């Protein structure tokens, strides 16, 4: 009897280990996503400071230097700021972007009187303090000195510090200053790279899959190709990066850092995935349909292109989308072909130097500024959103187009 109880206890314990393992895996995923989202969500807002701007009716603003003019307006709010260092401390609360914003405001000036509070971009240090990421200790907070804190308190007492939507994050390219840095350039780079990867790997993958599944006779040669493709699928991605470096950059002399090269490299990397997915999709088309087509006098090629391929398309597309999703998140091969440069311009084509979204994440997490941490998380949120949408599309395609034979 004793042994039965023991055995049952062991059974329960064993089952508990299983539940524990599943729960741990799910918990780790939840922690990861929670950490990323809770860190990143604040980056979609940005701290702005209100400045009283006064411009008379029909002023001649053509000769105004926006930088000096904005500073003059800031200074009029604080009449007792006199010395150089006081001025410097006051101005340092504003980002360089504030001057561009003011310049833009001046460009839109239509002669009407301007008198009121307008909001301008704050520096990243103030941003971090105001969001509570950097805690206040006495009269300083992180890199904010007591001499600066004085003005922050004044602005806060006047209710002139506000959080507004961060238009830079999704609307501009990389920058050394965190408050001006955005991921638009990286999104373009990723887009071009994925486009090129798709153009190279999709047709090649389908043609290979058809050949191996329908046309190749079972012999040594097709065996070699098959083993080769299975092994290629498991080659570390960084090795593909070295291949890209050696072939596209050193041999073909294509431009370094271009998304064209990144795309080609990612395309080679995705090819095996697409071939394997396409093969299993083609295999699952019932032979009766193909036999009927052959029986009615179609040739083998006609059967493939009129029946096998269209019927296998949902499966092929699902596999391709999943392969592309993996390529979007891939970083290591892009580091090898030099897509890690600091690039301020938004690339206008696949030949331009660019970074990709995951590389941007890698570059930002390496930056010392505190404000880049939340922006890195925000960039990850955007990346995960893209991947989520792609995978949802794949699931939807499979559900919608899948036929049960």
């Amino acid at each position, binding site marked *: 009897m004793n042994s039965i109880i023991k055995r049952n206890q062991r059974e329960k314990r064993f*089952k508990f280990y299983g539940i524990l393992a599943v729960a741990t895996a799910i918990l780790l995923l939840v922690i990861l996503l929670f950490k*990323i989202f809770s860190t990143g969500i604040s980056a979609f807002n940005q701290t702005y400071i209100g400045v009283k701007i006064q411009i008379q009716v029909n002023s001649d603003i053509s000769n105004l230097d926006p930088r000096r003019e904005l500073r003059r307006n800031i200074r009029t709010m604080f009449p007792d700021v006199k010395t150089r260092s006081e001025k410097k401390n006051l101005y340092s609360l504003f980002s360089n972007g504030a001057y561009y914003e003011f310049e833009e405001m001046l460009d839109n000036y239509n002669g009407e009187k301007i008198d009121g509070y307008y909001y301008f971009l704050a520096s990243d240090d103030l941003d971090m303090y105001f969001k509570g990421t950097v805690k206040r200790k006495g009269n300083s907070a992180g890199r904010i000195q007591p001499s600066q804190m004085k003005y922050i308190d004044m602005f806060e007492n006047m209710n002139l510090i506000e959080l507004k939507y961060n238009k830079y994050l999704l609307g501009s390219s990389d920058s050394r200053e965190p408050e001006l840095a955005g991921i638009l350039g990286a999104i373009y780079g990723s887009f071009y790279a994925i486009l090129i990867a798709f153009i190279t790997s999709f047709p090649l993958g389908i043609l290979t899959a058809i050949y191996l599944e329908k046309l190749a006779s079972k012999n040594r040669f097709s065996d070699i190709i098959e083993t080769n493709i299975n092994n290629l699928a498991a080659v570390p991605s960084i090795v593909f990066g070295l291949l890209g470096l050696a072939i596209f950059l050193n041999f073909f002399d294509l431009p370094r850092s271009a998304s064209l090269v990144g795309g080609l490299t990612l395309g080679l990397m995705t090819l095996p995935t697409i071939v394997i997915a396409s093969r299993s999709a083609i295999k699952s088309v019932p032979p009766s349909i193909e036999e009927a087509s052959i029986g009615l006098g179609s040739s083998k090629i006609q059967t493939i292109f009129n029946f096998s391929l269209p019927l296998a398309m949902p499966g092929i597309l699902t596999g391709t989308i999943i392969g592309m999703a993996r390529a979007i*998140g891939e970083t*290591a091969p892009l580091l090898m072909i030099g897509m890690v440069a600091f690039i301020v311009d938004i690339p206008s084509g696949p030949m331009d130097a660019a970074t990709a979204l995951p590389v941007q994440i890698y570059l930002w997490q390496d930056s010392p500024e505190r404000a880049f941490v939340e922006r890195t998380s925000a960039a990850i949120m955007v990346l995960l959103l893209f*991947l989520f949408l792609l995978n949802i599309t794949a699931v939807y395609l499979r559900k919608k187009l899948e036929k049960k034979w």
Partner: protein
Amino acid sequence: MTIEFIILSLIGLTAYSFFIGRKKALALSSLKNVTVHSQPYYHGLYSALITIFPAFILLILWSWIESSIFSINLREYFKDIADPAVADFYILGVINFAGGIDEKAINHVNFMSAVNYYESTMQMNLVLKAIVIIILTLMVSRYSLKLIAADFKARDLVEIIIIRVMKYASIFAIVITIGIVLSLLFETIRFFESVAVTEFLFGTHWSPQMSIREGQVGSSGSFGAVPVFTGTLLISFIAMLVAGPIGLFSAIYLSQYASINVRLFAKPIIEVLAGIPTVVYGFFAVITVGPFFREMGIFFNIDGFSSESALIAGSVLGIMIIPFVASLTDDALSAVPQSLKEGSLAMGATLSETTTRVIIPASFHGIAGSFLLAFSRAIGETMIVVMAAGFAANLTANPFNAVTTVTVQIVGLLTGDQEFDSPKTLSAFALAFVLFFLTLILNIISLTIVKKYREEYE
């Protein structure tokens, strides 16, 4: 006259061949007493394929030859420059200047005359290229249209071309592998010209940084890769310690115990872990796991706990490979015939006894294969270790110390400025060569094991 013009006219001529060919075949088939072998569509397709092919080949060949001829002729202008690399740089400058990419002229006596020569010849060359290619294409197009006749087997020919294209496409996969091997091999051989193979494989000191001044201490750099290999193995081993039990027990629970609903819910969630980009895991290691372990280190008073310790990188790497272990092990467990399981249960064994004594031994090969595959994935993973592990190579088995991995070294050596003749850069290729073969062997072994085992029960 630009290259776009040539390509556009080629596309136009191809479309022309297709439509005229189809029209001609259509007219032919409407005649009485004539049976045409192929559909008009195939006649058009064949004409189009025949039209584009020679022009395409000629275009590529011409562009290839012209660039080498130009660089030979341009070299004449820079004869006084001894270093061929500098001369190449000047030639590139000429091409970029003429193309308007670069607006700054290089300060050299012959620079402007070289630009003038390049511009005038390039223009002539383009016109000539366009004329030759378009005339050739027109001739081929006319020829292909002449071929159309009732007994002309256009369909068969088109199909032969399609099959051939497919065959070349599938050979391309082999070309990639050969490309990988060759590109790694060449640089590796160059590396071993300056560093002995034995030093690389058995040396225990790795510091590839070369000093700039000659004669400085350690100026030669040392390339004993043993610490790099042991670091890789240590981190991958820690990763397997995390992923092995969690993956194995998840798979056991999901395949043996869980109800269908739990399985449908939990399995995709675990798979999500595999879909998250590795750079995200790296960031997670930096902002969450790293600080957590550091605080644990302070709490337990562990000496020499490094912020880049193998433990941090290894455990996050482990999280990443959980789904690989789980899903492959799940497949292996599910492949065990139901009759074995039912037989054991009928004899009175509990489910856990059945699992440990019948199902796991019966699927042992599959589980081993899945562990090997996961291990090879861990060895080749880059971003997590680049972000969480260190660059300094320490020969240690202490998980609290910082170690480096093969992939970290490759990234460290190849990002930034590269000179392709220094052993420092070349050593990255040697490391990649080792990495490629190690993962290849692991994959082949595991794929063979899994395949063999699967056949056992079929």
